Each structure stands twice: as structure tokens, then as C-alpha cells.
């Protein structure tokens, strides 16, 4: 067995063409392919990161934009630790669909799952959704918020590292001790994230103590 302290499942959802696969490839392979074929069904990538000296394995499930939970991937949402909901800041319809996605999440995902709203493609100069609108939407729905660019590698590392840090934090808080191991992972996902997010004045803020994202 590989040596890692935590394993987290992260699932990406959002409309087709918002850049889910590109975010994942940028993070796991450091690539931004000029063209990326549509994801069919679901894709799967793995990356091990280090946070506070602990090895964390991230299992990233990248879903097809056209796929709805019911059809295929339901079981993956159920066991997900974090859900990244992605829209394209240069495409209003992808933002308009967010309530639909949230409804699906509510129905099929663990209610305590860590939810992150991501506005992708900040490199585009034809922005249609102002940052503030995204932030407010996230705040309303108890989600973290971040704007990224897979193309420019902006905030991509940060996104995943902060998710990892937050999940570790949840796990430790739940456990009441820092000696959390793989066996007590059932603790994760039950943290009191909801209240925490709404107290947070800045929606885009993850835990301030997790600055590992620069590595």
C-alpha cells in the first residue's frame, strides 16, 4: 500500500465546456492542451500532494458536462469529500445552470460535502459574470468560491491544496486529535462546514492557515 495519510475524493461537475478536464489536467499534469475532447462518462485522475508534511492522496473524478448524476455517476457523488462546481465566467448559461446542479447535489451528494464554486477561464477578456456575482451566489449557498484559469494556471494549485487543507482540518477537528489516520476517515465530510462558510465574510477565503498552495 502506498504511504499516505489521507485519501480524499473530489468530484468536478458543471456544464459542458466550462473547463473541468482542463482544470484537472493542469493540476495533475501541469498541462493545458490546446484542445481537449469532450469527456465521455467519467474520467479519473490521481495526485498525491503534501500538506503540513503529510502525504495526501487526491482522487479526482472528472465528469462529463452533459451527464447528470442520476444516469451514471451517482455513487461517486455519494462518497465524495468535496464537490467542485465549475462555471465559465465568459458564458452566462453555464452560470444560469448552477441552481440545477445544486439541486442535483442536494439530492444525491452527502449533505455535508465540501462544496466549492469555481469560475473558470479568467484569462478570457469577454467576461460575462462579474466576480462579485459569483461570490454572492457562493455565499448564498454555503460554498467556497474561487476564480481560476486553467490556461494561465491561475489559482488551480491553490484550489486543490486548499480543499485538501480544509478536508484535513475537518478530519482533525472531528477527531479531536492530530493523529488522524486512514482508518478514521469516516469523520470527514461531517464537519460543520455550513456554518463556517456563512460566517466567513470573504467567500473566496479558505482557511487562512493553509498556505501550502504555492508548492
Amino acid at each position, binding site marked *: *500500500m*502506498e504511504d499516505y495519510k489521507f*485519501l480524499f*475524493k473530489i468530484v468536478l461537475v458543471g456544464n*459542458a*465546456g466550462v473547463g473541468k478536464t482542463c482544470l484537472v489536467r493542469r493540476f495533475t499534469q501541469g498541462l493545458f*492542451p*490546446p*484542445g*481537449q*475532447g*469532450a*469527456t*465521455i*462518462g*467519467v*474520467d*479519473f485522475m*490521481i495526485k498525491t500532494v503534501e500538506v503540513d508534511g503529510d502525504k495526501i492522496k487526491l*482522487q479526482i473524478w472528472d465528469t*462529463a*458536462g*452533459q*451527464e*447528470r448524476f*442520476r*444516469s*451514471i455517476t451517482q455513487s461517486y457523488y455519494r*462518497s465524495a*469529500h468535496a464537490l467542485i462546481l465549475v462555471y465559465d465566467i465568459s458564458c452566462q448559461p453555464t452560470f444560469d445552470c448552477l441552481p440545477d446542479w445544486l439541486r442535483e447535489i442536494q439530492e444525491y451528494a*452527502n449533505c455535508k460535502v465540501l462544496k466549492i464554486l469555481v469560475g473558470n477561464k479568467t484569462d478570457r477578456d469577454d467576461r460575462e459574470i462579474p466576480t462579485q456575482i459569483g461570490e454572492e451566489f457562493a455565499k448564498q449557498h454555503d460554498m467556497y468560491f474561487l476564480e481560476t484559469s486553467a490556461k494561465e494556471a491561475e489559482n488551480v494549485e491553490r484550489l486543490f491544496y486548499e480543499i485538501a487543507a480544509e478536508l484535513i482540518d475537518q478530519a482533525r477537528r472531528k477527531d479531536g486529535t492530530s493523529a488522524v489516520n*486512514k482508518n478514521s*476517515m*469516516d469523520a*470527514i*465530510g*461531517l464537519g460543520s462546514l455550513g456554518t463556517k462558510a456563512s460566517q466567513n465574510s470573504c467567500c473566496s477565503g479558505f482557511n487562512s492557515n493553509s498556505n501550502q498552495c504555492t508548492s
Partner: protein
Amino acid sequence: MTARGIEAIKLNTQTKVSKLSADVKVETQQCNTIEILNDKDTKTTTMSPIERYRFEWQELLKILDEQPGRIREYGFEGHLKTSKFRSIYWSVMLRVLNEDYRNWKLQRAQQRQRYKRLKKDFVKNPHELGDLNTNDNPLSQSSQSIWNQYFNNQELFAIIGQDVVRTFPGVDFFRKSPIQNAMCNILFYYAREHPYMSYRQGMHEILAPIIFVMYGDHQSLLHFKEVTDAEVIDTILANVLDPDYLEADCYFIFSRVMASIESYYRVNNVLSSEWNLKTNGLMTKDNAESTDEATESGVIAHLNSIRDKILAKEDLHLHNYLLKLDIPLHIFGIRWLRLLFGREFTLLDLLALWDAIFADSDRFDLPNYIVVAMLIRIRDKCKYQMDIILLSDYTTCLTYLMRYPSNVDVGLILRHALHMQMPKKYDRPANAFVYFTMPSRRQGMHSAAMTKMSGPSQHKKGERDQNAHSMSGGKDTSLDLEKEVTLLQVRNAADAALLARLKPAANEESHVIMDGYAKNNPDLERLELKNAQTVITVARNKLQTYLHTIRRYITKPNSTEVMNALDGIEELCQYLDVKFMFPLHSCSAPIDQALEANEQQQREEKRKTNKPPLVYARCDHSTEKANQIVGTSAQATYEKPDNGFMLQSSRILGHLKEIELLTIASSEKTRNPVNEINNGLPAVDPLTLKD
């Protein structure tokens, strides 16, 4: 992932599609997968490209006249790889065109007319229509509203366009706007003509190879036209491959392919399951009963039935292992099926695979077997280093499945799939993994029967002939055995399925999260152990079968080396006949002392005589008579030891559920002893003989 397909196309498109005809050599080099170029083909290699083109066309017509069924054989056997008329072969195989080529012009004319009508029916621009219904306006939500429809169309076009522009990214052919426009149109009309399907991601990659092939054929014809007199060109050919109708002609091939695979795309739960049941006949009542599976989409049920019906039969170990790791086939299988393996192989390999799929039948059964052959292939590929799938963990296993290795021989996969589907017609490829299937019947040898033939006495020629005789005469035996094996396979599959069903239930309580599978789960480990034991048993049986076959043909080994090698194999067989210890029993379920049948008796016997039985006496040179004596005396004293583990294994699931697990080994005792070959000694555990 897409890169492979892309690179393959790049190879092809670098030298402009219009010059395809000059690239035969390149293509044949790349397509070293399926051999066979028959006489006609070798004849063609001496021709100029132009002569070859004309010859190929005439051949096609001739075959259609004389024995149209041959066309399908061509598809199966890889003859279409260098064909300049692949789109026509496909059209005929898919029944887009008749086998009677004299009707082609008419058929094409009708189809093109119909396509033109689709255009007219589905694209109505309210800006250009003067006589709109007075109730109709741009804000209307009525389904009858032309305005409403107009906006819906715009939306649909945008969705399709989004995928089409990223079809095989990096391949120039698909970056051309005429090609992209044609693809968008085809997908749009398809979606409108089949509103229950609409457009779903992946369809564009079914269309892409079709348009690629059709375009290539058109270019070949144009090239041919350039260098020959216009009069020489067959009017049928000119009509059927008219570049002006690329879109329309592709549309009908595409629609036909989609008709066969639409269940993979449908998400409508109940409907598609039923449809699946009807079309594929693969679903069972068991499947339909389970509420879980009733609500899932057709493609998942379909993949599950592939797993339980084909994979379990072909490679039970792999089947169980995937269950154990909790990797359902649909994680990767949905993409495999929806794209008909488009991202798993290079384009040239893919086209060869499609040749066979289209040649098979309208129901597209072959892909089911291809899925299984692909799975078995990558477990087999590294057999000599390490079983990639079987021995690796969840992550590695899944990574391989999600990114199918690129160096897999598609020809072998195809032949294995064809063998599974039509065992009588196609032999199992020699180096394909053989796990749990019996050797084909005509070999007359059956592994399980061979377990008894451990006696070195087989060296005696007379004895051997007698064996051979009794084997070939014992067809009933072999049939029984096959039945038995099937029964066992089914049981094992049922056990595995039950385990799989139990597992999530057990996990749900204690783990919100799990890493694919619960490590150290004793039930699963037992299952795995059981599989290992099955492997050992089967390996031993197979070894013995092969040994016997070799001995039959080498009647007089001319060197001691061969003799020694054969003896060595035999010795291995003896080693493999191990008594399975089952250490895990001590962990949970209380276990009675596991005595083998007759074990007590044997021990006492041994203690009394205090000498090893004559099994290991080198009776190679002893007389037949002596062998018989030994044989009969041993037969009287011993019975085949039953497997201790197998008898105790009904408790395998501890408190969860009692499941009776059987393997071949445990079933041997149930076989009618009359059928056993009393040529030597029964298989005896070498370990017990030592004391």
C-alpha cells in the same frame, strides 16, 4: 487519451488525404495486426495504384454478384484495411446500401432526397417566413411555435458545435470548417429526427471516423478521376462516391450505427432496460429484479450483464477481482461502448475493429465480446511480469482501465472476441489468455479428466493409446465435465455477486468514505484465496492435458532431455496438487478440524505399512501389468482426497451469509467414477506421502 487517435490521424493526414492512394505501403506497415492477404491481394501489390483501384472496384462488384456474404468475412478478417471503398463496404454491411449494386443509384437518390427534406423540415427561419400563425411570436413557449423551435434549434446547434469543434483536437482534418459544418448538420438533423435521443456527447466521435472514411474514399475517387479518362469511370461508382453528397451519405451510415448503439446513450431508465433486454437478450431476470439495477440506465445494466455473462464465463478470476476492487465496468465501459472504442485505439486500428463490428450483425453483439477481450488482454499482457490488473491496487487498476495501454494488439483482441462470440467458427488465438474455459471439443482432451492421469505409466505406448481411446470414446465424460465447469462458474459468479452486494451494505454503516475497497476485509480475502486455489487447480489440470497431448504425439521421445522435461512437467503437476490450507478460518468462523476424506484412514494405513506407496517408484520402465497392479491396489486403498478447505468453506462469510463455495477440485468427487481412467494412481498429495 485522445492523443492516440489524433496521432494516428496525423500520420494519415500529414500526406494530405487526397494522396491517400499512394500511402498504401505506410498503411500496411502500420496495420501489421491481422495477417492474411489472400492471393488476390498479393496479385494487387504488383499493380499500379490506378490498376489496383479499378481492380478492387471490379472485385467488389463481382463479390456482390457471386457471394455477397464474403463481404462480411472481409470485415472480420481485416481485408478492408487498405480498401479505397471502405465506406461502401460499411454501407452494404450496415444495409444502408443493398447487396444488389444495380439499385445503388436509386437508393442513394432516395436517401439524398430524404436528407434534403430533413433540411427543409427542421430548419425554419421565422425571419424568412412571411405566413406565420398570428399566435406565434418570439416569446411563445408552444411546441408548435416556429419561433420557439427556432430558438431551441439555436441552442441545440450551440451544444453540438461545442463538441464538434473539439473533435480529435489537433487533427487538421477535423479543424476544417466544411467538415465541422457537415458534422454539426448531421448531428443536428439526427437529433431532430430522433427527439428521444437528441444529441448526446460522444455521438460526434461516432460520426468522426465515418466522415473521415467517406471523405477518404471520395478523395481516392477524385484522384483516380484525375489520372484516367472520364469514360472509364463506372457511373455507379461516380454516383455512389459523389463528393457533393458527403453530408447526406454520411448521415445514413451514422443513423444506422446509432440505431444499433442508441441504448448506450439513452438515460431513460426503464425504457432502455427493456429495450436492452429485447435487443441483446443478455439481461436476466435476476438483473431486472434488483431494484438498484432497474433504476439505472440501460448502458450500466448492459455492462453488468456483459460482466456477469461473458466475463465471468471467460475469466472468473478477473471478474471476481473487479468486484472485489469495487470497479464496475461502467466507469470505463460507458466510454468504450459509446464511442465504440474510439479513444482506446489508434484510428487505423479502430477502423479495422469497426469493420468487424459492422460486419457482425445489426445488433452489434461483437462490442460486448470486445469489451471482455480487452479486459482479458491487459491482464494477460503482463502475465510474465505481473498481472497488471489482477495484482495491482484500485488506483493502478483503474488508471489502466481509464487509459487503455496503447501497445495492445487490436488484431488479437478482435480474434479473441470473435472466438468468444462464435467459438465454432473462430479458433481461440493461440496466445490469448485461457483461464477457465475448456479446450475446444475437437481436441478431445479435457483437463479435469486428466487430473487422474498422474501416473508415469503413460510412458508406455500401449497404455497411452488406450488412454487416447478411452478419452476420445468418452464424449459423455467431456460433456459432463463441461456442464460441471459451467455450473461451477455460475455458482462462483453468484457467490461473487452476493459478496459484492453484501459489501456496500456493510460499508455504508461504518464508512462514509472508503478507498475503493476495504482493505483486510476477510471475506474478500477469502474470495481472493479461493480464486488463487482455483487458479492452481485449473493450472494443474491444463498442464496435465498439455502433457498428455504432447506425449500422444511424441510417441518415442528421442532424447533424454525431452524425457526429463516431460517428467519435469509431470512433477510440477504433482506439486500443484496441493492440499489447500485455509489459514483465514481461524480469524472468524469457528472451524471443525479439517480432515480430508479418508485422511484418517490413510494415516493409519501409512503408519501400519510405514513405507511410501509406490506412486513415486519410477515405474517408467515397469511393465504394464505391474502398473495395473499398483493401480488397482491403490484404487482400493485411496480415494481422491477431498479438499479440506472446500468442504469447510460453507462458512466463508462468517456471520454475514453462508455461501457454499465450490471449485473444480471439490467437485471431482461427484463425478461418476466409472469415467475415471484407471491407468495409474489417483492423484495423491505429495506432502502426505513423505511422512
